[in-house]
């Protein structure tokens, strides 16, 4: 990741150490994951020890210290989605992409995560693919959304 971009993000938060989590969130949303160089830069600029950054990045579920796939799939497994068949959706996702929750395939096509509640409970089960919400999904539709994703990247 470009150091200039990282500096820009840090400067936006007035280089305040308390903004550490917000800075990391922005880097992650730019770059999808947090490479070592980025963390080193943050540590220097905010004057926060690496050990604390390590603690933060492992404590919060959002942060990823390994590269993410081109497509990010989030499946809600909150109570409301659970009772409406979230597990079937998760199984279908694994069938189609070959990726288990919390993992990314070696070709970096898909990353799959579970989340608990996206606030769209009335539409359960809910799945988010690359930021787009899909409500009341069924296994067949899930497979279609993911296959369309895989196709669009081959073109």
């Amino acid at each position, binding site marked *: 990741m470009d150091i200039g971009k990282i500096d820009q993000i840090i400067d936006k938060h007035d280089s305040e150490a308390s903004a550490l989590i917000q800075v990391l969130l922005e880097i992650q949303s730019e770059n999808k994951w947090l490479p070592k160089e980025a963390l080193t830069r943050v540590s220097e600029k905010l004057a926060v020890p690496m050990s604390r950054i390590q603690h933060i990045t492992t404590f919060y579920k959002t942060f990823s210290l390994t590269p993410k796939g081109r497509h990010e799939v989030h499946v809600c497994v909150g109570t409301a989605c659970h009772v409406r068949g979230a597990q079937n959706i998760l199984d279908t996702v694994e069938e189609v992409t070959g990726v288990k929750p919390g993992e990314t395939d070696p070709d970096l096509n898909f990353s799959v995560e579970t989340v608990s509640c996206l606030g769209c409970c*009335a539409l359960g089960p809910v799945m988010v693919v690359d930021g787009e919400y899909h409500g009341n999904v069924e296994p067949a539709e899930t497979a279609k959304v993911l296959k369309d994703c895989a196709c669009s990247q081959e073109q």
Partner: protein
Amino acid sequence: MAKITSPAELEKLREKILSQRDPDKLCITLCSGSACHATGCDPVADALAEEMEKQGVVGKVDFRRTGCHGFCEQGPILVVYPQGICYLKVKAEDVSEIISATVKGGKVIERLLYVDPNTGEKATLEEDIPFYKNQQRLVLGPNRKIDPKSLEDYLAVDGYQALVKTLFELSPEEVVGEVKNAQLRGRGGAGFPSGIKWDFARKAPGEQKYVVVNCDEGDPGAYMDRSVMEGNPFAVLEGLMIGAYAIGANEGYIYVRQEYPLAVANLTIAIEQAEEAGLLGENILGSGFDFTVKVHRGAGAFICGEETSLLNSLEGKAGEPNARPPFPATRGLWGKPTNINNVETWANIPLVINKGADYFTAIGTEGSKGTKIFSLVGKVNNTGLVEVPMGTTLKDIIFKIGGGVPGGKQFKAVQTGGPSGGCLPEDLLDTQVDFDELTRAGAMMG
């Protein structure tokens, strides 16, 4: 918007906005909350823009994208005013007919109306749908009337009137007194009396104090805070400013869980607009009161809904809880006195100040005043957000508003209060929902 420097100027602006709005004018509103995004409000909005142009009604019809109506399962929801004709599960393909038949011809399109699954009856107006009929939407009400990205819309529904009253007519002690008299209890779960908590923070020694909004909403299955923050961020902001004035804080933080990107987006716009209009910043409306606010996004950790963890997270640390006492009211953010309340608690504050404690205490039960928003989800006919007076029975919520269990199946149990709550069986269906009754039944509010 130019800076507003006095209450008189604000009122002048409000009058101007209202004079430009004709309540009899045709207006189409489209719910654009995050659930309606999932069901496809964007293609509907695009089709509307195109059809309005094509059928030559631009300028004759207003179009507004609103916050969550709470009936997400039936979204996208489109309402045609002034009649208030409510269409559910609207698709882009329906739009051409909506313009030609309803907007131009005043005719109702039957197939887009709500059908009662129990009686087969249709409802034309939103108010006629049983799901809404039995609710009292004091907090959620504005959601369907205003565009959450428009300060003007909020001003048109008397927005920031409570702030003016607070800054110019009431002393901090009087504000705390009003909240105490209203017997408002925290909506975040524990039900602690908000006025008493504010008083602790107000009386705590120290120059620097903070106010914080808890929008972590960690309980899966609940989305009332999402809906309020997304659909009416102004009310939360206004409540927060009133609380800041009352306890003597000049800085506030709004903690929003990471899973709510639209709430962050709308809230950020509301803050920018308030800053531009002089409703945030230095010397607000010429009152001498200064207040700034920052949005802090969470990073995915259930425990951060707990207040001491949340405050640690705001400081840029891991969100691990501290032992209490000391309570945040004496030692909170960066060791300073801090008052933290839930989104819904803050959103009730403008109501309490505008209408007064007497109005507020007339609603609800002996120990729990006002309304409470519930998220009714799972195996019920009508799922969605339900705002009812405290003390409404579980039976009324599930059967009158929720329409009962689908397919006429036997009711088994209802869980309240998320993972920390409990499951209540059929023989407890007459339980009146308020803080004390739920605790007595072994469950929790929420």
